[in-house]
């Protein structure tokens, strides 16, 4: 499976993501540079976490207008998987590939900690091999993960089964204490209408090796590999 990890100025989870895709999952993974206007034939595009363009203006706003986003849109339009993690999710929102926006966390602070997610839909390439309702333990690291969307947009996400992950407690129950940033409806990840573009705030690449504290992130990668083979 061929994967590209896009490097924007200020991306800082690019190397971690490439490491996991290549060394842990065994994909054929390489970087793609933000200023490039073409993307080689790849099966998967990952927009990694970090602070693209220093988060200046708005998180993801400048990266969303980078030259590489044109071939990324083409890739998405062909129905191929795009995964945006953390800042990558913010870029997908700014690019209009996913609906909604991010606010500052309700704590007003950056938060780096482990959270629990419930898989709400397995009908995406990132969750196809996971169990419906499966609880994944993944870390977050962001200051702006407080997802918002207008009521009609939220209703549409529900109606179309496009909420992919919700923050829950370790036992899988929704509660205000389990939501680390105030995101509406405890939303941690969503997908587009075509279901091939997924954005999520937590970092699966940080939870793919036992010695780093957990391997639940592998459910995402294994889904992508399975989806590519299907």
């Amino acid at each position: 499976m061929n994967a590209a990890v896009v490097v924007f100025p200020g991306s800082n989870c690019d190397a971690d993501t490439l490491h996991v895709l290549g060394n842990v999952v065994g994909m054929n993974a390489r970087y793609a540079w933000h200023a490039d206007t073409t993307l080689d034939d790849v099966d998967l595009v990952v927009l990694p976490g970090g602070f693209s363009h220093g988060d200046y203006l708005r998180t993801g706003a400048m990266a969303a207008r980078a030259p590489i986003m044109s071939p990324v849109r083409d890739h998405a339009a062909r129905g191929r998987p795009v995964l945006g993690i953390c800042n990558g999710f913010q870029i997908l929102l700014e690019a209009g590939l996913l609906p909604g926006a991010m606010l500052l966390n309700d704590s007003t602070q950056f938060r780096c900690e482990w959270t629990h997610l419930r898989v709400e839909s397995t009908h995406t390439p990132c969750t196809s091999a996971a169990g419906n309702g499966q609880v994944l333990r993944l870390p977050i690291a962001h200051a702006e993960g407080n997802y918002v969307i207008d009521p009609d947009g939220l209703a549409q996400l529900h109606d179309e089964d496009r909420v992919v992950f919700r923050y829950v407690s370790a036992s899988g129950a929704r509660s205000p204490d389990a939501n680390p940033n105030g995101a509406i409806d405890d939303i941690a990840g969503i997908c587009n209408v075509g279901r091939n573009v997924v954005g999520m705030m937590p970092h699966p690449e940080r939870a793919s090796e036992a010695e780093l504290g957990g391997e639940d992130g592998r459910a995402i990668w294994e889904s992508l590999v399975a989806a590519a083979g299907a």
Partner: protein
Amino acid sequence: MTLTPTHEPPSDEILREVALTRDEYHFAADLLDRPPNPVELGIIGGMWSEHCGYKHSRPLLSRLPSEGPRVLIGPGEENAGAVDIGHGLAIVMKVESHNHPSAVEPFQGAATGVGGILRDIFTMGARPIALLDSLRFGPLDDRRGRYLANGIVGGIGWYGNCMGVPTVGGEVQVSASYRGNPLVNAMCVGLIEHDQLTSAAASGAGNELILVGADTGRDGIHGATFASVDDPEASHRGVVQVGNPFMEKLLLEACLEVLQTTDAILGLQDLGATGLTSSSVESAGRGGTGVVLNLEHVARRAAGMTPYEVMLSESQERMLVVAARGRAHEVQRVFDKWGLHSDVIGEVTETGLLDVRDNGQSAATLPITMLTDAPTYTYPVERPAYLDEVGPLDLDALPEPDDPTSAFLQLLASPNIASRRPIYRQYDHMVGANTVIAPGGDAALLRIKGTPLAVALSTDGNGRTTYLDPFVGGAAAIAESARNVSCTGARPLAFTNCLNFGSPEQSAAYYQLSQAIDGMAAAARALETPVISGNVSLYNESGGEAIWPTPVVGMLGVLDELDRRCGAGFTADGDEIAVLGAGRPRLDGSEYLSVAHGRVAGCPDINLVDEVAVQRLVRELIIARLLSSAHDCSDGGLAVALAESAFAGGLGVQAPDLPILGRLDEALFGESQSRIVVSYPPLAAAAVAAAAATHSVPITPVGKVGGDRLCIGPIDVSLAHAEQVWSQGLELALAGHAPPG
């Protein structure tokens, strides 16, 4: 603009501005055989400041052992020291203070401290893999104290998070002694292959000097001299720099890319204190060369800047690159790719001079050696009278606690003991995908990808102990940081340090500095851990009162096999708990004495033979896979150490029959060096006892792991309640709320 040498000696006001004494002015004029012009005066003042010239501390610092088989680069040679960790890899590390800027503008002061130490590491060619921050705050029940503390933590997180370098450790202590003069010591650790280590020397006449990164502005002028005068609060805001971590991230990636893809870079030097002045002077000093700088090529942020301002600007996120003659364009091509502005601003010469020109006119001409060899000062070391007043502790006058459980909970809620999570959850401590033991344990542990190795990192330093006995405080800073490293199973290899003291011109502070360095030297020799880099921050005082003398040590250890590691948390019901070590717990200088009785008194002590033995033992037990947990027994004594291992593991403690010799409060809350709380399966007990006997280390059984309560002698409280009190103590204090009951 034409500068004419001043033949009139400068006024007192001008000398104060450049932080030179009149004697130093005359000394400089004698060395030059003429009076320095105003630009030269500013350059001399910057280079002879304590921050750059170490004029009060250099003679004392030479007492620290700095040699060892693993040392690749020792203190003072380059921007940071380097240690061999095996597999052809080296760790590069340094700690540096940003106390004075943080006292004025805490967010940017702390942020730019992080930015500066990161540059010190990647100038060596190393990729930064970890940050640690040693912080000291004034009381948090004071509005300004909270403003400083929250601002400092916010600034550290903002810079490090954006850079993508994990903040994996550090410490926080709160005391009235730091009111108005908080301490912000930032440590950075980098990883590099031996043969990639890059020098900061400017060598080879004709090689080109490239200035890259941010434009040069008026910010931060006199930051170095500012850091070397009393009472930062009385100074002005213009000396504090504003950081741009995004620019620094681009600099990091661009510099490492040039180093990896070309051999056109001969030297790299960051612009820190005194900006272009010290970076060019220090590079030429290392190369035994001179430099010509053409200031008209320096990109400016403001119009009308004078040569004086350009030379002394401390604008952040700038680097000076020495490129091979005729190859500057190869380097600049990579900077362009990363969107960074760069200019060729000068070249290396054989003159041995700093030759500063502005549009062809000479602005300053000074011998490099004069600038790199600041005059040094030594003072008589006289024991200050306060030591006799605070030393003796009359235990008979101290009542023992009526209610040990409530005394215990009060201690757990103390901002010096409570969970540090409210701080470290604001730091990205996982980015890099190497963090195996995250903040909250004894030492952070990072794997080294592609090898079986891991490195352990810890910072330590106790101002209260050092105030009560500067020699013991210095020794304890080394011993405790090494002990924390040993508790993961890693072998301590080398350390970096930051010495935060009051004015060396005051005899008490000079005595403290001298004694603390002697204590550090003794412990470093005993533990075979040389110093490889460091920083000195003197003149830490406000309102005429010096801070507690606070030596901070950043210790590096190496674990040869990541799989043979140990954590601080209990792991299994039924495990036996014991204390390793000969240290006798005492109330002298303890957190309990401060919290329960409001006293800072006593004579703390340390036995380095015991220290070496207990650390060797715990590492041997971990490598033999006999232990389930190992945790340093320090602030708050045995009861707190047991609670911390319980919270980390989510398992209770059954130790109702804890052996109590003498006073109850000493046994529960007394502190000593050289003690480690361990747990192990009952089947391992005989082997643990045998190893302890071999090393002549006393082993004291305490109880068992298990249940959902903390039963420690007469203390009996539910684990959940104790953990809640401990979890909320610092969080509530930072938010301005009373401690939990």
